[in-house]
């Protein structure tokens, strides 16, 4: 596999929540670290996010939520990824996520949760360690 293949990351804002400060900072931080970053903009439905992720052929999706709807929305997105045979896209999240929700989110397949106080560098390092280009056979990438 070509080590020069750039990892593509989508930063997404599901739901009606408009808090985009954190999402934009992470998007910028990842771009500055050399990743190809796609930012969905606000107010995306789970369907829109999953469709865009598949079309853009991303390796990971970072979901940002600060208005309390994370449990419902994150689960919908994971289900839709599975349904679209894209369950190997790594999904991580961040925002205002109460402590007690974290085990449940990790249980359904969210790989990491970045909460307020996270350093840009820590999020970038996590991505470096945990996200590699997907090994989808090229024939499937039409």
């Amino acid at each position, binding site marked *: 596999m070509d080590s020069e293949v750039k990892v593509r990351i989508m*930063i997404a804002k599901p*739901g*009606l*929540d*408009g*808090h*985009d*400060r954190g*999402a*934009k*900072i992470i*998007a*910028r*931080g990842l*771009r500055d670290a050399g990743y190809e*970053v796609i*930012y*969905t*903009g*606000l*107010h995306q*439905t789970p369907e829109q996010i999953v469709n865009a992720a598949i079309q853009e052929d991303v390796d990971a999706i970072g979901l940002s939520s600060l*208005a*309390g*709807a994370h*449990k*419902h*929305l994150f689960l*919908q997105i994971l289900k839709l990824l599975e349904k679209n045979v894209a369950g190997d896209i790594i999904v991580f999240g961040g925002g*205002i996520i*109460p*402590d007690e929700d974290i085990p449940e989110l990790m249980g359904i397949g969210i790989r990491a949760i970045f*909460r*307020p*106080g996270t*350093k*840009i*560098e820590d999020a970038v390092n996590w991505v470096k360690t945990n996200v590699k280009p997907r090994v989808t056979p090229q024939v499937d990438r039409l």
Partner: protein
Amino acid sequence: MFKENEIIEIKRDREKWGEKLEKSLAKAPEIKERFSTVSDMEIGRLYTPEDIQGFDVQRDLGFPGEYPFTRGVQPSMYRGRHWTMRMFSGFGSAEDTNKRYHYLLSQGQTGLSVAFHMPTLMGYDSDSPLARGEVGKCGVAIDTLKDMEILFHGIPLDKVTTSMTINPPAAILLAMYIAVAEKQGVNKKQIGGTIQNDMLKEFIAQKTFMCPPKPSVRIIVDTIEYCTKEVPLWNTISISGYHIREAGSTAVQELAFTLADGIGYVQAAIERGLDVDSFAPRLSFFFNAHIDFFEEIAKYRAARRIWARVMKERFKAKNPRSWLLRFHTQTAGCSLTAQQPYNNVVRTAFEALAAVLGGTQSLHTNSLDEVLALPSEESATIALRTQQIIAEETGVTNTIDPLGGSYFVESLTNRMEEDAMEYINKIDEMGGIIEAIERGYPQNEIAKAAYHYQQQIDGEEKTMVGVNKYVMEDTISIETLKISPDLEKIQIARTREVKENRDNGKVNACLDKIRSACEGNGNVMPPILDAVKEYATLQEICDVFREVFGVYRDPGMF
């Protein structure tokens, strides 16, 4: 303020002092090379009369209640009446929130402030597919007049004033409020309160938008025009810097973009043919109280002075009430930390004190748990008590503008004014704030500032206690407010029941009238008022707006 020969003497003395200081610094250097505010504005070692050489007390300071209002908008300020203690509150169902309002009023709160849930803020009913997972989560669910009747049950709307943080559907919530008041036997001419109704800052920062900027401003001008005649005690708009700051702007950007938005609304209302003095006295403002104490105080003082000058000189307003910048303040949510959350009580107290020393008219103090969830009753009580301690124990309300005349504060106030005017002039050159927003100018300036600040935190140039310094491994767990998962079903059932029991023929006729008003030049407020009284839902009315005006999409810049 000082005679030229006095300044020369002060300069000479300062130079002598400087020589002594150099020797002492050689032995013990200062702890940092550069001292700056949370907005990264550099601050000098010492301020003296030299720093305010051109300062003219009569021109730049004046007296409280007198132009240019640097010292405050009322002649007696807090000696006459404390600020309104107005805690932003709303969660779950209308019943849950109504209970919280009764509790807060019983604890000495003096005004209400409604937090709506995301679907209401965005113009969707609870039964919309887009509302799944969001109902009652970050505010109260309001779909129809029925919910609003429950929300204000037992609260006399001729005695309590209410602020509603609502933007794209502001006209609809105002109409519902008027309808509830009328059911209580209170005429709309008697009700007092505020709708946020500030769409420009939504495009810039808060991002609850529905239609594109131009039609959004048109609906706002409709509400201004309507209230000027029909709801004369209502604050038609709360021109908000709060969200601009929360999105990561500097203090100067918050000040400049907020006032530029204000200029945009005044311009639009004048273009509608309204007399500036008929509507300007009902414009109000809303600022953030961030953690940098003096920067914030200077910001509020500069805001009053700039607005007075803009209204008098640029818009030729003659009524002194048109010159007043009256403002609400909320302490900075973004300054709070999830780590060691009890420290948030301390941060909020300092921020609230800055707002008071800056002359705020009303204040919300954040609760210690707001970085984790909506506030619990206990934490909201501590936040309210923080204000009561400032008002009644600290003694800071004994005199008006106690920091007026401080070399530092006056110099910083001047600098805030100069730097903000530079932005405002740049926006004017672009053709006004709507043009600037369409180009993404304020959005980009804020994103840059937010990223810069985050880098300073990550690089430990700026301190956040508990986050990048004095870190503790054990996290303190605090009890937070939970929203029942059943609420969504209950709320959807209620809204469906309302729809089944109303006269749909009448509702549709009302919606048609709203559509014609939107398509033509008619004011949208009277048909909206008729529609909500027939229990048209919030989304049904917003769908008309979306059909006629189109939908604005986030350009997704970062």
